[in-house]
């Protein structure tokens, strides 16, 4: 086995000193000269035509610099943006499609004055019927949310259904898709719900925009996707990218909620009216809920069939996503869920349909897991029912049907050894889980054990790229500029480890430049899909290898030999017993008489996703990226009197390929599992009958707290290397959220005999279910 100096070591996070001292700067901490503040008026009704917006009173109020509404001079009423479907205006002009949509904005010298002016804007609406539920939204009598659905510019993959609320329908067919159950002896089916959720990053979204008098746009934003933001702004304002400066400071969490863009189009549009001023827009917590993006929101049906011996033969599913007022990135979530809902199992026959549906809620976008938690919640719950019906142990049923090398997945891709090993993950998870004895039911508690397996592919642009610039300083320390965003996941540390290993130098000598400025930083598609370690890591690997070659080239000039004769050890370049210290090569080599040869060490690296294709419009088949497998299981305790569920032990085994940093990997797992526990037991966005969100703060929308933490976490990092990953690593960050809800609900069923299919199972729902049972 290779002995590494940095890879696999629990190196402390490079950003932790800044963060524990409070000196790390986030967007709201930035201060600028001539600062103004933006506050907005939101619709307050979920679906309406705008008849008039009266800003005359607001414009005259103290401290107000500019009020922007649909009638503002110079506002392009036809301006629409989007990532998959161009259906979203930065500011409502004719209609509002959700209650948090912005109707007018005020720029003033303080937030207080801006807010006072906002309260004095009068809007007249003609209210329209609204729809929140995806089933209701596809009914014939449903109100049409986008009259122009089908006419918007869109990417070729995402074909809308005109005159309906369906903006995307994905249909995947594999094998005998018309008679998927022909060989089935047993069929089970159920209907499931995964509610709308909020990312609840502790840092609310914020941004500062500044148009200078040269016409350049400067933006500081809490975005995971600086280069997507730049592209959107370049299109919106018809500005060359050399005039757009997108800066990203530290991010206080992302989880998809700060991708791809949220508040940036509106803010930059408004700030353009006050050139020379820095305009800050920071959302209140309520605005994060009602005015950015939500996640999930699935209702669906699934049906699976098997032979008597448990061999799976076919699967049918219909997934309906309530995706909110605008398509945002949900097109890709719909796609991912459509083909991933089969889980890590082999089904010869598939007929899978997934629908993206406009509803009158905030738009639904990316959220940790991106289409995988939704469908795999369904399959993992349904396998449990199949096992019961067949009279087979559910672990045996899973083991019998796991995707193994040589099997084809739902997309027809053949799985190979290098995809990792779901069987090994499952076995190791079971081994860890069964080390503890599950107590027997007593007067106060039920006890249950449940498991789930998982698979995930990064959903990304088929040409997603990462680029880096590397320079070796005169003292042999190294700076590497990346476009990947540090939002808490620990990429700065892990990427420094990859660089240090490749350059054979200590990790402390590498600085990954976290400060992103789109003028200086090389291109990065965006920091999503758990791909930063892998894709940026590969780019860094390439840049470091080039730097090593450059050191050797300089030395080759001195030794007057071919570089193949030279070796590099991180301190010197040597030829046989002779060597030259790197310090004498870093700026080129200088002879005693002063004359110099060679070049300073400066390199670039890039990594581009290869062989990813787009879905075929007829069969839905395509070639996504690589896969990561895992398995999760838990023991839970259910309080008979309160209905409260406590997770006693939660085990996760993930085939991570190669651990770069065990501590940060573990942190991704404990964090992901906890978010999954939130989805299982607590979190759900609720609206009242008028279409107004009720869960609009962190008291009403409850994310897990420290007392919800499992009594014990076990994290198992399985290492079957990914051949094209840096040192064999593969993506893992989103994955731990996927299996947690089904494992917990399976445990609940095993404990009580009650099959619950809708998330979350709050203590109230548990009590009701227990009452109904008795």
């Amino acid at each position, binding site marked *: 086995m290779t002995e590494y100096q940095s890879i696999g070591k*629990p190196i*402390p*996070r490079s*950003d*932790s*000193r*800044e*963060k*524990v*001292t*409070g*000196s*790390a*700067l*986030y967007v*709201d*901490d930035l*201060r600028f000269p001539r600062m103004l503040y933006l506050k907005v008026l939101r619709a307050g009704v979920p679906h309406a035509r705008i008849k008039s917006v009266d800003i005359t009173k607001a414009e005259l109020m103290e401290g107000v610099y500019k009020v922007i509404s649909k009638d503002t001079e110079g506002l392009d009423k036809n301006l629409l943006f989007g990532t998959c479907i161009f259906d979203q205006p930065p500011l409502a002009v004719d209609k509002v499609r959700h209650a948090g949509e912005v109707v007018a904005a005020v720029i003033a010298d303080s937030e207080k004055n801006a807010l006072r002016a906002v309260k004095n804007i009068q809007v007249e609406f003609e209210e329209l019927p609204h729809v929140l539920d995806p089933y209701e939204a596809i009914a014939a009598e449903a109100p049409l949310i986008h009259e122009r659905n089908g006419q918007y510019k869109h990417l070729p993959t995402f074909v809308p259904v005109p005159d309906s609320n369906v903006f995307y329908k994905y249909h995947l067919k594999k094998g005998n898709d018309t008679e998927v159950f022909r060989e089935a002896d047993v069929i089970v089916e159920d209907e499931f719900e995964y509610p709308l959720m909020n*990312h*609840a*990053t*502790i*840092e*609310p979204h914020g941004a500062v925009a500044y148009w200078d008098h040269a016409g350049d746009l400067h933006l500081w934003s809490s975005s995971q996707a600086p280069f997507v933001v730049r592209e959107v702004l370049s299109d919106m304002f018809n500005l060359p990218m050399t005039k757009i400066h997108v800066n990203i400071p*530290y*991010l*206080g*969490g*992302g*989880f998809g909620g700060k991708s791809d863009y949220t508040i940036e189009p509106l803010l930059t549009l408004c700030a353009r009216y006050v050139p020379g001023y820095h305009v800050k827009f920071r959302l*209140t*917590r309520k605005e994060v809920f009602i005015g950015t993006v939500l996640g999930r929101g699935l209702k669906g049906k699934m049906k699976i069939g098997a032979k008597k011996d448990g061999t799976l033969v076919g699967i049918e599913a219909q997934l309906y996503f309530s995706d909110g007022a605008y398509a945002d990135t949900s097109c890709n979530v719909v796609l991912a869920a459509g083909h991933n809902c089969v889980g890590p199992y082999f089904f010869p026959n598939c007929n899978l349909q997934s629908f993206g549906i406009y509803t009158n809620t905030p738009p639904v976008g990316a959220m940790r897991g991106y289409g995988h938690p939704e469908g795999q919640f369904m399959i993992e719950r349904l396998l449990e029912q199949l096992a019961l019906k067949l009279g087979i142990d559910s672990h045996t049923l899973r083991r019998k049907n796991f995707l193994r090398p040589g099997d084809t997945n739902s997309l027809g891709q053949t799985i190979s050894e290098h995809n990792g090993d779901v069987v090994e993950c499952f076995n190791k998870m079971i081994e860890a889980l069964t080390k503890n004895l599950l107590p027997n039911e007593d007067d106060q508690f039920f006890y249950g054990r449940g498991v789930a397996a998982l698979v995930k592919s990064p959903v990304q642009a088929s040409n997603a790229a990462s680029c880096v610039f590397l320079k070796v300083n005169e003292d042999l320390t190294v700076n590497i500029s990346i476009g990947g965003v540090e*939002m*808490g*996941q*620990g990429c700065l540390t892990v990427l420094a480890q990859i660089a240090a290993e490749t350059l054979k130098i200590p990790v402390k000598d590498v600085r990954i430049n976290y400060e992103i400025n789109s003028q200086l930083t090389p291109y990065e598609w965006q920091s999503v899909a758990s791909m930063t370690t892998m894709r940026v890591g590969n780019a860094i690997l390439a840049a470091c290898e080039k730097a090593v070659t450059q050191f050797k080239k300089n030395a080759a000039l001195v030794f007057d030999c071919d570089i193949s004769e030279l070796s590099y050890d991180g301190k010197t370049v040597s030829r046989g017993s002779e060597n030259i210290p790197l310090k004498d090569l870093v700026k080129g080599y200088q002879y005693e008489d002063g004359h110099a040869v060679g070049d300073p060490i400066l390199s670039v690296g890039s990594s581009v996703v290869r062989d990813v294709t787009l879905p075929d419009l007829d069969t839905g088949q395509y070639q996504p990226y690589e896969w990561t497998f895992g398995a999760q299981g838990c023991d839970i305790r259910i309080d008979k009197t309160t209905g409260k569920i406590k997770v006693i032990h939660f085990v996760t085994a993930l085939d991570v390929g190669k651990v770069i940093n065990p*501590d*940060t990997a*573990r*942190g991704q*797992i*404990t*964090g*992901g*599992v*906890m*978010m999954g526990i939130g989805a299982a037991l607590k979190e759900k966005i609720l609206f009242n009958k008028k279409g107004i969100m009720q869960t609009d*703060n*962190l*008291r009403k929308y409850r*994310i*897990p*707290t*420290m*007392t*919800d*933490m499992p009594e014990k*976490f076990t994290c198992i990092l399985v290492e079957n290397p990914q051949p094209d990953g840096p040192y064999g690593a593969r993506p893992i960050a989103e994955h731990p959220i996927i299996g947690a809800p089904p494992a917990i609900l399976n445990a609940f069923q095993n404990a009580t005999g009650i099959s619950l299919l809708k998330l979350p199972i709050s203590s109230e729902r548990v009590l009701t279910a227990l009452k109904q049972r008795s």
Partner: protein
Amino acid sequence: MELTITVNNREYTLEVDPKESLLFILRERLGLTGTKNGCSQGHCGACTIVLNGKAVKACLKKAKKINRANILTIEGISPEFPNKELHPIQEAFIQATAVQCGFCTSGLIMELFALLRENPSITEQGIKEALEGHLCRCTGYQPIFDASLLAQKMMRSKNSG
């Protein structure tokens, strides 16, 4: 109103609106941005500071209630770092990898600062209950809990040594 407060051992006299929050005063008037604004509603704990020895949420404290108060923020617990050592709680957070995005970190450290000073031998359950008011979306809390125990241990050995 005129407000006099001591923040991190320095006295300030300011002209403020009585309804202004301590969080606004710290961040916007004094430039102490280490205290974070996560919700301004008292729900997330990110703005926790130590006021007259007690951990409180700065967003809920109005100016009119804090005249003559003695306040400690994250900037005040190891003000001479890196010339001198970090506070053991900060050191423990680094060692236990309890920091991810960092937005909840200041609040948690200040809560523990007050807690461990008041009750150095607080139980594990006591720590969990004290930190329940602090939301963290990144870590799953386990590393924070581990850091808390480590900090407690480090502070005890420091005091006994």
